[in-house]
């Protein structure tokens, strides 16, 4: 229990360091790679929190595919973020966004006291449909992995909807990237030459 707690604290602290790194560095290749490390650390945290399926998916999809997509994008765009300050920014902090983030964080913190204690077995989330899934899925579905049983059977329509979302996103990406037209800058340059 204490060991789990230490791993948990360590992983979340590491995540905070990565998030700060992402915020501060201007080299975008570094930003994308550290975001991959962020996802991988989150995957390790999911293993400690008993979510092995989520950990697999986060490591493969979140840390793998998302990082590759980011690096592929960076082959088309500049690798450095240009320094820019919002109006009223001082000491390297943009105060209006900072204020917004702190205010949102404070509101969320106020709501936390209503949540059940971390790890408590009598939290409402554990006493609704979850016991049915855990107790009945061996008889009703017959798959040892309860997460798979819910994903593919009890909530199969959710998964169907997910597939539709991915299909739509894939179509949109194809529409955006395949058969690219000449850019506006080329046209302008051509216009200037004439």
């Amino acid at each position, binding site marked *: *229990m204490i060991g789990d707690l230490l791993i948990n604290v360590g992983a979340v602290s590491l995540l905070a360091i990565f*998030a700060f790194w992402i*915020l501060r560095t201007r080299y975008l290749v570094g930003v994308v790679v550290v975001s991959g490390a962020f996802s991988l650390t989150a995957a390790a945290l999911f293993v400690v929190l008993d979510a092995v399926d989520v950990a697999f998916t986060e490591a493969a999809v979140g840390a793998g595919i998302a990082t590759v997509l980011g690096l592929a994008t*960076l082959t088309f765009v500049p690798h450095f973020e240009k320094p820019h300050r919002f109006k009223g920014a001082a000491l390297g902090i943009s105060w209006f966004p900072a204020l917004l983030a702190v205010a949102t964080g404070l509101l969320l913190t106020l709501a936390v006291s209503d949540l059940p204690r971390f790890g408590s077995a009598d939290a409402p989330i554990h006493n609704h449909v979850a016991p049915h899934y855990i107790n009945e899925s061996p008889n009703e579905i017959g798959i040892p992995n*309860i997460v798979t049983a819910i994903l593919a059977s009890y909530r199969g329509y959710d998964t169907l909807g997910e597939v539709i979302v991915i299909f739509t996103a894939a179509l949109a990406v194809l529409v955006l990237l395949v058969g690219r037209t000449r850019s506006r800058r080329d046209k302008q340059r051509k216009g200037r030459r004439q």
Partner: protein
Amino acid sequence: MMSDMGQVFGHWNVYLVIFLMMLGFYTLIARGNMVKKMVGLNVFQTSVFILYISMGKIDNSTAPILTDNPLAIYANPLPHVLILTAIVVGVATTALGYALIIRIYENFGTIEDHELVDFMEDEENTL
């Protein structure tokens, strides 16, 4: 006072998640570079996943894969299923965002917010 401490300590995971979430949120709104915005969004998103998965954990629980031990406590599988869907959908939206960034760069020659705004103002003035 002791129960207050217990209350705070029992929620430390959520407090840390809120901190991470706000770091991602700040990256998203305070940085003008679009690739960095996407990465900030990813940080925000992953923090929300951690919040959900934390809710499913029970003290001394094991992963929700059936074992022969009749006394085993299984973690709540429902948030795991929801987050599995969310991770995959999140990557789909990330891919779409990156595709848009590539197109924006081809058209305008920049992926910085403020330069795009300048570009559009110039265009309005010339019209």
